[in-house]
């Protein structure tokens, strides 16, 4: 049974924990560096990225998680979790904590305020999510991916914007797969372990 850490400083971590439990994984809430021992992968959930950034500092988790990512362990970042992985954050705070510098840039709240939050069908053919069985994706004050480098594989787009990307063992979505009962992306993450 894979042991999956779920960053539990703030945000939608419980929904990720529920999804992973459903799939037979062993989720572990991560609030302190000691919680990272013996985990096989890590989920960075959605929430408020400024709050998470501050708590990553006070908890002492920023450095060990960065090292964890640098070691090549599997990561799944959603929404605020995606922002934490980007090389460049637009409209962010200058003191924003970053856990990795993957070759993409992302704009915080790039789709606008809550009134502009939305749901839409997305397809990711490489993952077997096609027109006949699209993924219902929920975007909440979502980050917008503006540029992706050569090393980044775009798995899904909405209109022209990448919304699901992968770079080696790291996957990131601008939307919230934990808010729907569709577990395909969590399954896909577990399959990469």
């Amino acid at each position, binding site marked *: 049974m894979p042991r999956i850490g779920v960053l*539990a*400083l*703030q*945000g*939608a*971590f*419980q*929904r990720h924990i529920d999804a992973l439990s459903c799939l037979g994984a062993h989720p572990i809430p991560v*609030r*302190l560096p000691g919680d990272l021992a013996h985990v096989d992968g890590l989920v960075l959930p*959605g*929430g*408020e990225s*400024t*709050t998470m950034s*501050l*708590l990553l500092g*006070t*908890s002492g988790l920023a450095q060990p998680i960065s090292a964890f990512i640098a070691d090549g362990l599997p990561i799944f970042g959603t*929404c*605020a979790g995606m922002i934490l992985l980007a090389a460049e954050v637009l*409209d*962010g*705070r200058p003191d924003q904590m970053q856990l990795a510098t993957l070759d993409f840039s992302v704009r*915080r*709240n790039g789709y606008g*305020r*809550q*009134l*502009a*939050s*939305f*749901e*839409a*069908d997305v397809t990711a053919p490489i993952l077997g999510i096609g*027109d006949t069985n*699209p993924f219902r994706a*929920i975007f*909440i*004050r979502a980050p917008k991916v503006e540029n992706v480098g050569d090393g980044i594989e775009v798995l899904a787009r*909405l209109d022209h914007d990448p919304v699901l990307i992968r770079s080696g063992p790291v996957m990131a979505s601008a939307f*919230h797969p934990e*808010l*729907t009962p569709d577990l395909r992306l969590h399954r896909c993450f577990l399959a990469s372990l």
Partner: protein
Amino acid sequence: MVPHHRFSARRLTNMAQKVPPQGERQTETMRVKRGLAEMLKGGVIMDVVNAEQAKIAEDAGAVAVMALERVPADIRSDGGVARMSDPAMIEQIQATVTIPVMAKVRIGHFVEAQILEALEVDYIDESEVLTPADEAHHIDKFAYGVPFVCGATNLGEACRRVSEGAALIRSKGEAGTGNVVEAVRHLRSIIGDIRKIGQADRAELFEWAKRLQAPLPLIEEIADTGRFPVPIFCAGGLATPADAALAMQLGAESVFVGSGIFKSSDPSPRARAIVEATTNYMNPEILVKVSRNLGTPMTGIGMDDIDVHLADRGW
């Protein structure tokens, strides 16, 4: 006058949750409204009365700010009618912070809600802290694209608010007192009844619905899933990191802190400490660390010493 058909159309989209053609974006659905509440979990929403306080709150790690004219402690001591804030103040706060901005309207004052929606606030709080505008009706919250949070003292009130379209419930507590006793009473009542309904047999559900004056389908949903359909946060009287951790251990999923921060001697460190306590609510060692040397909390008042019980407002 806003034409009635606008409300009806919104209402249908919200209630029927129609699946649109592929690729089409659908805004303002219940899932999208509840989704933002999910993102605010495990966090602290702080009352602020100007842009400067909003900045302090954001820097301290607030997940959202609640813009209001006066904090509840001042509403209580000043008396008079408490209303929606000046739009200019809300706009200044929106221009200052990047976290979600919430604002309050009077119970039943659907025009104040229309104004806040036009300002594109991220959440509207139909709040007993302001002077009620309607003593029988709450706002039809399905009519708006902006999600609503409402207070509740018990599970019946919480269910009635959800049946009117609220996407988030907060236990009311007694705002502006710095006294956590009512928040504890309301949380225990709400969470306790959810637990009991989870154990009830089918015949008992009818009686629960009757006793709580709540719609039967919501009671059935709680019985089936064992949980309330929208997140439950805690508000009203929290003043210390320990208060926040107490609310979280009792089953709240986030906390609202009003007067407790900006009525204390040193708001910024206290705000940060409450944020850390909310994350680490099960860890007494961290609670010790963050509770140390915070200066004087707001003075607080006992329940026997107040004339107006704000929590009694709401029907």
